[in-house]
């Protein structure tokens, strides 16, 4: 019997999918061709005719490759929206709205070295609310069958957005104000990283981790 997996590998070419997924697709196609071949042989078709008929089942390998990639990438985009973008944006907007509410209510942050542009700000009420948002992001992502990186990114989304904003601000500041002291800019930037990225990320991750542990424990108990 012909090696149908080798035949598929030769004709399908490179499929831009993760290695494990690509191998499964190839194995499945090879199995299909093998089944078709065995069925023809059982019906008394000669080996050479069976091989010829089976090979005719794929009129265009290029079309097959394109179709598989389109189906897989459609799914990838759908997953990315439901597992990352929607949970991430809910987490981000929820946490930002609460920050504004706390500010309007007059809750002041604890500031170390006030007046210094590189002061460290502990926005305690807001920071303490972040585990809830981290857990919410992780929950929404997990509910959409997310796992691994998309779940972490969804729960850390507010911190990731702040990181992106700070990078843009830093680049713009360095380009527009060339006379600014590099030392001052970097110390302000370092403080901003601690205040708006590292501290929120720790609290968001705490909520996400606790939720995932609780869900794992519940699943084990079930």
């Amino acid at each position, binding site marked *: 019997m012909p090696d149908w997996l080798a035949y598929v590998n030769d004709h399908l070419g490179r499929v831009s999918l993760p290695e494990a997924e690509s191998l*499964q*697709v190839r*194995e*499945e*196609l090879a*199995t*299909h*061709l*093998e*089944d*078709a071949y065995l*069925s023809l042989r059982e019906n008394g078709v000669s080996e050479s005719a069976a091989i010829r008929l089976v090979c005719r*089942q*794929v*009129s*265009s390998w290029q*079309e*097959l490759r394109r*179709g*598989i990639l*389109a*189906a*897989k990438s*459609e*799914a990838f985009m*759908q*997953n990315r929206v439901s597992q990352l973008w929607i949970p991430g944006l809910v987490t981000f907007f929820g946490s930002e709205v609460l920050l504004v509410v706390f500010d309007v209510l007059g809750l002041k942050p604890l500031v170390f070295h006030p007046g210094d542009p590189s002061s460290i700000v502990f926005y305690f009420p807001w920071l303490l609310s972040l585990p809830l948002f981290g857990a919410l992001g992780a929950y929404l992502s997990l509910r959409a069958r997310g796992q691994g990186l998309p779940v972490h990114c969804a729960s850390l989304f507010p911190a990731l957005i702040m990181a992106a904003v700070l990078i843009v601000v830093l680049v713009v500041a360095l380009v527009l104000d060339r006379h600014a002291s590099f030392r001052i800019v970097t110390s302000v930037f370092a403080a901003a990283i601690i205040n708006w990225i590292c501290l929120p990320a720790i609290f968001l991750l705490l909520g996400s981790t606790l939720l995932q542990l609780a869900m794992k424990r519940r699943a084990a108990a079930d």
Partner: protein
Amino acid sequence: MIRTELKRGTAEIAILSVLEQQPLHGYEISRRIERDSGGALRFTLAALYPLLYRMEKRGWVRGDWETSDNGRRRRCYKLLPSGRKMLAPLRAEWADLFRAMRRVARVNHA
């Protein structure tokens, strides 16, 4: 455009319908559809597998690898509850289409 959508719609309802009866692997799905349609519907690999993968990602079907007694590994597709839910509206749409075509083009289904 209509042709492509129509073909995809035909294929979707055909696959869901055969999987409603029992879980099947890819080759069996194509054979069953071909047999039940009297040879009128035939799937090429390029039509079948992209559609199965799309339906799987939509949560309508699930493919699980199984090893048979002779040691061959095959991916067996099973209809999921969301896929089962899709069948009723799809059947209603097709029934509407047949009725409309009967009126407009005097097309009769056997």
